C-alpha cells in the first residue's frame, strides 16, 4: 500500500495505491492525519482509483477522517472506487457522510463551487 498527497488550496487529495487491509490501515491513518495537521487541510478527497483490494478496515479509515475533517467544517469526497469497494462503502452507509464523485476534477470543482457560492452569498448579505 502506497500513499501520495496532492494539495490544492485547502483541499487535500489522498491517492491510495495497493491493498488496503487492517495491516496497512494504521500507517495510512497516521500519514493522513499528520498531513492534514501540517497543511491545515480543510477538505479531503479520497482517490481509490489504484486500490486493488479493500476490506472493512477501509471503512474505519474513512469514518475516522470524516470525524476529523467535519470538525473543521470540511467536506469528504470519494472517487475512483471499483464496484466491490463501492458495495462495501454502501453497506456501511459511508455515502451518507461522504459524496461519491466520478473523478478528482469534479470533486475539486464541487468543493470550490461551494466556496464561491458561499462567498457570493455573504457578499449579497452585506
Amino acid at each position, binding site marked *: 500500500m502506497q500513499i501520495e498527497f496532492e494539495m490544492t488550496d485547502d483541499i487535500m487529495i489522498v491517492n491510495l495505491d495497493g*491493498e488496503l*487491509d*487492517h*495491516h496497512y*490501515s494504521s500507517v495510512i*491513518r497516521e500519514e493522513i492525519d499528520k498531513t492534514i495537521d501540517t497543511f491545515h487541510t480543510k477538505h479531503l478527497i479520497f482517490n481509490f482509483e489504484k486500490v486493488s*483490494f*479493500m*476490506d*472493512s*478496515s477501509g*471503512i*474505519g*479509515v474513512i*469514518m*475516522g477522517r470524516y470525524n476529523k475533517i467535519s470538525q473543521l467544517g470540511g467536506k469528504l469526497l470519494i472517487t475512483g472506487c471499483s*464496484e*466491490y469497494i463501492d*458495495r*462495501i462503502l454502501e*453497506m*456501511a452507509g459511508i455515502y451518507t457522510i461522504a459524496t461519491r464523485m466520478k473523478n478528482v476534477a469534479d470533486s475539486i470543482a464541487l468543493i470550490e463551487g461551494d466556496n464561491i457560492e458561499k462567498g457570493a452569498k455573504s457578499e449579497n448579505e452585506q
Partner: protein
Amino acid sequence: MNNNDKDNIQNKMKLQFSNRSENESFARVAVAAFIAPLDPTVEELTEIKTAVSEAVSNAIIHAYGENENEMVTVECLIEKDRRVVIIVTDNGIGIEDVELAREPLYTSKPDEERSGMGFTVMESFMDKLEVESTPGVGTRVIMIKKLDLAYEF
C-alpha cells in the same frame, strides 16, 4: 464429518500461520491460489478474498490481542458442484454474544477505528456464514460460496 461429506470433497488445504497482521494478505492470496483451478470470476475471487481478509483480521485483532506466538488456521475445501467452504479458526478469547457481534456496525474496538462491518461483509460476499464461538476457548467462522458454472469453450 461423515463419509458422505468426505466423498464430496475434491481438494482441500489447511493453513496455519502466526498471529501477525502481515499474514492477512498471505492468507487471502493463498486461498485465491488454491481455488484458482476452479477458474472463478474476478468478482467471485474478490468476494472470497475480502471475506477471508475479514475473518483472518478478526482473529488477529480480536481473538489474540497482540500475541504473535498464537496461530490462526484457515481451511479451504473444494466440494462437488463448485462449492467452496472456508473455515477460519482461532483459540482466542471467543465471543460472548455472537448475535450481537454479527450486527452491522457493532464493534468492541471503536477506538481502533474498527467499523463493526466485518461479519456483515462476510455475510454479503459469501452465500452462507456460520459463527461458532466459546468464550475463553475460541472462534470458528465457516463460510460457504457456490461458484457459478465456468463457461467451457
